[in-house]
Structures are given as C-alpha cells and as structure tokens.
C-alpha cells in the first residue's frame, strides 16, 4: 500500500496512534528517569516530603539547573503526569493494540499487571492515610495523627461543655496558599459566623509582640521561622478573624503548638477553633500494656522493639496482640506498625505508625502477576526454541 492510498486518520485515531506509540513510551520513561534522579538528589536539600510533592506528585515542575553559579530554570513534566501518560500508553500500546494469542499471553499478563501496579499507586495517592499513634504504657487510644496534613478545626460544645461527635475541618490545601496579604473566608451552614483565614506560615513561633505593634493580636504575633528540612519538624501558624452579624470581629492567632484552642462563644454555645494535624479514628482502640526494648550487647543500637498491646473492639471485646519491628498488626484494613519509641519523665512511650490503604496488597499481587507473565513468555520462547529443527552445518 502506498502512502497516497492510506486513509487519513481521524482525530481520535491520531490520538490513539500517539498514545500507543513506542516513541511516547521511550519519552515518558526517559523523563521519569530524569525526575527520579533529580527528585532523589533534591531530598538532601528540601527533605523527603517536598521532593516527593515537587517531583513525583506533580503535573509539571521547574527544576533550577545550577550552571557555574547561574540558575537556569528547566521546565519538566511532573511524575504524576508522566505516570498517567504511561498508564494510557501501556493500555493502548501493550494491551489494546497488541495482537492477542497464546504467544503473547505472557506479555499481556505482565503489562496488565504493571497497569494494575500504576492503578495501585493512584488509589494509594488518593486514599492512603498514614499517621502516628504514640502511647505511654497503660494508655489507650483509637486515633492516629497525620505526619504532614494540617487542618483548621471547629468543634462545637453545648452549654454543659459536651462536645459534638464530629468537628468541622478545613483541609490544609484550602489555606496553605494564604501567605500574609492573602485571605479566604470559610463558612458552614451550621456555623453562626464566618472565619477569615490569612497569614499562613508553614513554620513559625508565636512570640510576645512589642509595645505599639499594630499587627499584634492579644499581645502576640507570628514570627516566621525557616522551614525544617523534614516537614514533621514544622510548626505552622495562621491568623483568623471571626465575623458574625451580631458581634464584633474577633481576631486570633492559631498555632499548631498552642496548648488550648481559641474559643468563640455564641450564646451558650462555645466553638473551639484550632490548627492541628489531621486525626483519623480507628474502628478499634489499642492499649499499650508493655514496651520492651532490646539492644545489641554493649551498644545503644536497637535490636528489637516490641509492644505488647490489647486491641479493644467497639463492642468492648479485648484481645492481646504483639506489635514488633517488621511484624505489624493488621485489622479491618488498618496496619499498625512499630515505628519508634521515646523515653521521658512520664515513662516509656511506644510510637506506632498506622496506615490504611485500599491498595495495600495490590503491588504484591501485581508483582506475582508480572512474574507469572514473564515465566509464561520465557517458557514459550524456550519451548519454541527447543522445537526448532536443528540445522546441520554443510561444508
């Protein structure tokens, strides 16, 4: 068939041809390699969370290339975008377009498994929660606190001081962009006031304001501090103004390290407003009974941390469990790992990491499926090779 006789492709056909091309696969994989390299190197300067956010969770990014002291901004596609393109590239090129048959079955299984792994990453990105649950011996809890996600929380208390079962929360992504000078107003149908949020600082102290400081609130002001290398070390702060029709505006500083919330009273009802890390509730509670720390002889190097805990179900049923390094407790979609420990005047505190991820086991299944696909492919090649008739060398 000559090029002249070829039927021109429709727009969707052209798009499919691009999406399923080897050229796109090579381009995407090359950029992924560059992003992975730059993102890994940048961890030493900006920490794990920021490098992950900038290089791997993003649609696009600008990397500053240092050329003899001159910074050249280099725009690059982000890891998020590349993985979405890779997904469709593999779906179109290695699944839809691939010739289906016994010979290609192994290949098809492997590619489907890799797509499944990419989907697992996407589900994890959207739905995974991870946080810490520190417990002293004898203490119980059924909630874990995020390492990174901050929230602005409004919790309502009635005249007797009883709090509601749920608190209203504003996620960090709705106020983290509010640098000094930028503001956003939040409202809710059950709230008798609106909250104007401004002046977010990712890492800050709250200090006593100088006399005559017009920016001070209740005699205090936010003092920005250089961001900690790892986000866990940052203590954020922001300013709010509570506005209602019937009362004068009330301003307050909210600080992650504040010991108590800011209270707004409307009639007999109190509203506790605070800036904190996101907390998630577990469907069961954990009580730490005993924490055992084993060290390598003659050193302070940890050999094994073990927490003897009791799992308390919602119906009150108690069940002893042991959480130790690399041996987590799994229950109802939650995984409780032994993370670290601390020792203070109040005794030993065991720190657990709690994770819930709907796609927790998907990468494992994916790897098994990839292996099966590869085995089928290699065995097929081997069988075909062995069946090939031997050619005799002729002189």
């Amino acid at each position, binding site marked *: 068939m000559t090029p002249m006789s070829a039927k021109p492709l*429709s727009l969707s056909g052209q798009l499919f041809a691009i*999406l399923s091309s080897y050229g796109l696969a090579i381009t995407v994989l090359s950029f992924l390699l560059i992003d992975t390299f730059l993102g890994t190197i940048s961890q030493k300067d900006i920490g794990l969370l920021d490098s992950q956010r900038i290089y791997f969770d993003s649609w696009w990014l600008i990397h500053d290339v240092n050329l003899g002291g001159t910074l050249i901004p280099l725009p690059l596609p982000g890891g998020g975008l590349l993985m979405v393109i890779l997904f469709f590239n593999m779906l179109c090129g290695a699944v839809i377009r691939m010739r289906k048959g016994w010979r290609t079955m192994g290949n098809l299984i492997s590619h489907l498994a890799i797509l499944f792994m990419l989907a697992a990453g996407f589900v994890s990105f959207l739905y995974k929660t991870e946080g810490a649950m520190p417990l002293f011996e004898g203490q119980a809890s059924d*909630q874990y606190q995020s390492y990174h996600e901050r929230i602005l*929380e409004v919790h309502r208390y009635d005249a007797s001081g009883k709090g509601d079962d749920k608190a209203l929360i504003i996620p960090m992504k709705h106020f983290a962009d509010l640098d000094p000078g930028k503001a956003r*107003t*939040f*409202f809710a149908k059950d709230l008798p006031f609106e909250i104007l949020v401004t002046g977010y600082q990712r890492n800050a102290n709250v*200090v006593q304001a100088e006399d005559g400081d017009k920016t001070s609130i209740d005699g205090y002001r936010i003092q920005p501090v250089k961001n900690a290398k790892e986000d866990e070390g940052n203590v954020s702060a922001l300013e709010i103004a509570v506005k209602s029709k019937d009362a004068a505006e009330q301003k307050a500083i909210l600080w992650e390290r504040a*010991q108590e919330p800011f209270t707004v009273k409307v009639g007999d009802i109190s509203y506790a407003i605070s800036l904190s890390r996101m907390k998630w509730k577990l469907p069961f509670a954990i009580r730490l009974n005993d924490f055992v720390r084993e060290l390598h002889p003659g050193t302070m190097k940890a050999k094994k941390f073990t927490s003897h805990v009791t799992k308390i179900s919602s119906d009150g049923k108690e069940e002893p469990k042991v959480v130790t390094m690399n041996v987590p407790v799994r229950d109802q979609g939650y995984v409780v790992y032994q993370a670290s420990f601390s020792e203070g005047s109040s005794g030993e505190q065991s720190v657990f990491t709690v994770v819930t991820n709907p796609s927790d086991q998907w990468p494992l299944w994916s790897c098994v499926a990839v292996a099966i696909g590869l085995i089928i492919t290699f065995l097929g090649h081997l069988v075909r090779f062995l069946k090939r008739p031997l050619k005799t060398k002729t002189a």
Partner: protein
Amino acid sequence: MSTPASRLKASLAHLCLLLSLAFSSCDRVSERMEITQTRDISTYEAKPKLNAYPQERFGDERLRWETPAGWAQAERSQMRPVNLTFGPNKEGECYLAMLPGGAGGVLANVNRWRKQMAQPELTEEDLAKLPQKTLMGIQGVYVTVDGAYTNVGAPEAKPDQRLQGIVASLGEAGLFVKMVGPKALVEANTAAFDQFIASLKLRTPQQ
C-alpha cells in the same frame, strides 16, 4: 461506518480528555469556601480547655496557680490576671492584681481597702502590727477587715462583708491578693484562700 476498534479508540480518547479535565478542575479554591468536611471525635481525645487566655494557649502563662475546689475562674483583665469567684451565687471574689507603680505603697493600699469597708484608716504603727503572709515568695501584710463593702463604682454598700487580702511590694510594683464577700462565706473559704496563695507562682516568661 465505525468499527468496534475505532469506537474503542474514540472512547479512550474521550476518556483521556475527561480525566485531564477532571484532574485540572477538582478542588479549586475560591475566595469564599464552604466547610464541608468533618472528622470523628475520639472518646479518648482529651477535652480542651475552653475560653483559655492567650497566655495559656501559647504556653506563656507567667502565673501558675491552682483554683481551689468549688471556686471558678472569672474573666481576667490586665488589672486582674487571676480572677476567681466562689459561693453558691458567686458572691465571693478573689483576685490577684499587679500594679507597676505600686499605687502609693502598702499603707495607702491597706487604707484604701479599709475605706471600701467603711473602716477608719491605719497609721504606720498600726500597719507594723498587722500579721504577715508570703505571696509568691514575698513577705506582705495580711489584712482582714469586716464591714460594709462598697466596690469601685457600686452605688451602695453591701453590709456584713469581709475583706481578706495581702498587700506586698515587689520593687516599685505593688502585688495584691484580695478576697471579699459575705463574712460567713469568706470565713468558710479561708483555708481555700491559703491554698490558693500557696499555689501562686511566677514563671520565667518565654523568651
């Protein structure tokens, strides 16, 4: 006529387009936003202290004290950094005041209190005979006066009241703890007053 394969390709292209639109438009922030998300409160979560003062919130409380059982905290002010009430109808009050200028010295303040209770003024000699009590490590004069109490700005005096307090000097500043209320109620709360005085401590301020 479209074949199943071309229809699949077209659907896929549309899916890509829709996905890219969905990703670019989700979670858009605006100047006014409704709070729609909630979180469950755990029964294990400690109940916060409502109506906490900024000093308490920011861990910058210079004064530490224990509120005696049955007493309640009232609204604080710059003049009254500790302000407590007691009694069935909160008829009794007890507060700590710190005045940078000292408000005329110990004798002037003791006599001001006596005047509020409609009692004659004391002389320096009388003052020297009054008992002493320690307030945050400083020796102060312990005053007990019975009479009809006229609070600042009150239109008339309340009969059968007791004022009990300590006047101390810290450099040029005056330090006062004053408890006042119906005589029987104040008498019944003298032990609680002593407990409150003993618990009062000054903390090094946050740098």
